[in-house]
């Protein structure tokens, strides 16, 4: 128990140290406060926005978008990844087109999204989905392809159906890869928020960041950044914790002193 706490504490040391130095350096005017406002100013801004209630609204708006976008990305990319990982023909057919779209900047897709999906939430979700889908897809495929063939043979000889194979062998075996994909995908969801909320949003953390930049209010921008970083980090940690719970089968390994 105590050890757990100690370990947690270690991770906090570095961030705290950085913030402290940052504040000190700001106090002595060693950084340009127009570009890098002091933590104290950011905190002050935070309190301000909480008091007028707008921060909460911004967070909520983004949170909903990210959650919906991320879940949609999961729903699309995991089955697709399984199909591509298992079926060589489909893979050959779709590979070039996927490989092409993998490279396209999200901003370049905006006109198409507007044309087809309008300027409401659908388009925004689409951009989020697009940002998250490839890490999940590629890691799913990798998870499938690196599944131990020997175990698949065992499952097949035991009469497991294709669906059973997918969720009783491939799924548990690809979990580590899948989690990497999900964690990456989720963080690209957060990252995409600025671009997303340039498109017809009047609320959200990305909007806050963009507004902060345009209105030359760096503390607003950094507040947005901080909150995205913190929420994203929490999600990331939850997912890591989840991963640890699920993937129980890692063996004890040799430890050197």
């Amino acid at each position, binding site marked *: 128990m105590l050890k757990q706490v100690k370990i947690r504490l270690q991770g906090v040391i570095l961030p705290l140290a950085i913030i402290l130095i940052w504040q000190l350096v700001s106090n002595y005017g060693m950084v340009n406060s127009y570009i890098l406002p002091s933590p104290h100013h950011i905190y002050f801004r935070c309190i301000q926005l909480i008091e007028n209630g707008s921060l909460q609204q911004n967070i909520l708006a983004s949170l909903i978008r990210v959650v919906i976008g991320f879940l949609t990305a999961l729903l699309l990319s995991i089955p697709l990844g399984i199909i591509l990982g298992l079926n060589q023909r489909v893979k050959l057919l779709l590979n070039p087109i996927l490989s092409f779209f993998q490279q396209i900047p999200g901003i370049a897709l905006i006109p198409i999204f*507007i044309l087809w999906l309008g*300027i409401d939430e659908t388009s925004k979700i689409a951009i989020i989905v697009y940002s998250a889908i490839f890490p999940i897809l590629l890691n799913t495929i990798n998870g499938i392809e690196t599944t131990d063939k020997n175990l698949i043979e065992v499952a097949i000889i035991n009469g497991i159906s294709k669906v059973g194979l997918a969720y009783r062998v491939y799924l548990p075996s690809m979990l580590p890869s899948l989690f990497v994909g999900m964690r990456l995908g989720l963080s690209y969801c957060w990252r995409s928020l600025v671009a997303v909320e340039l498109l*017809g949003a*009047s609320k959200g953390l990305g*909007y806050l960041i963009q*507004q902060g930049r345009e209105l*030359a209010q760096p503390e607003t921008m950094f507040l947005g950044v901080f909150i995205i970083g913190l929420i994203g980090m929490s999600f990331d940690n939850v997912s890591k914790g989840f991963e640890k719970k699920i993937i129980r089968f890692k063996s004890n390994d040799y430890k050197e002193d």
Partner: protein
Amino acid sequence: SSSQQQTPALPKTINASYVSRPINVPSIVAQDKKMFETEFAKDNIEFKWHDLTTPDSQLEALASGSLDFANSLNNLSAILAKANGNDIKVISAYSAFPKGIALVAGSTAGISNEADLKGKKIGLQSGTMLYQMLIEDLAKSNLKKNDITIVNMDSSSALTALLSGQIDATILPDPLLSKAIASGKATKIRSAEGLISGLSVIAVRSDFAKNYPNLVKQFLQIHKQSLDWSTNNLDQALQLAATKNQMDIKAVKRMYPEFSFAMSMDNAKVDLIQSAEFLKEEGMISSDTDTTNLINDLIDTSFMPQ
């Protein structure tokens, strides 16, 4: 340091931003003719251009000292920056093209004048000159912000949204404006003339201006030269602009008359104070700002060529 009368040694390099779009002829010409490079080389100063198109990056670069001059900075951004502690001086006008900015409506949106905007969906980026124009325009027809729905998006997206019928109206600058009208799916309601100045300016770091007033003067002098050259060689200048921006020469020729590149700041102070008041009303700068003081501190016309 003001007590020390010796001026600091000349800088090794001068960094200036330029924006070539939509048709910023002076910058394009100056760049092509290497006017600044040649002139400053005489003092062994290297002159470097940076294609920084977004005002945010220009201002951040000014604040961090990576940039000494910013060309074609829109007046609202300059005011916002100044109000938030970015120590810059506006030393000259760069361009103004209120004629090249207009409110357009989708042809099926049923809008023929400003009064029809009531209850409509209008897409544009809040906090910009375009937004300023909209507010001024609404005021003329006794409408308020709450009477319409503003959808926040950049102009490029707004054009797409207008053409695909997702919004009823928007305010576009050229060349997006002419594209919209040429498509036959949008009609022009009115231009920005008489509503906003549409002014963009040349700004310098205050630090730099204080240390090297002569270089600032020289800078504007060369800028003026580029303007003179353009006026004297208009066809050539427009051709350069067309090539630089991969545009049709006809489009450039059609747009050019909308632009004024006059450096004069005679009316600028009034315009800037109006803009600052607008920002204050919109809550984008602090409500206790003394706008006149702010603008007085921002503008410095002492470097203007005679």
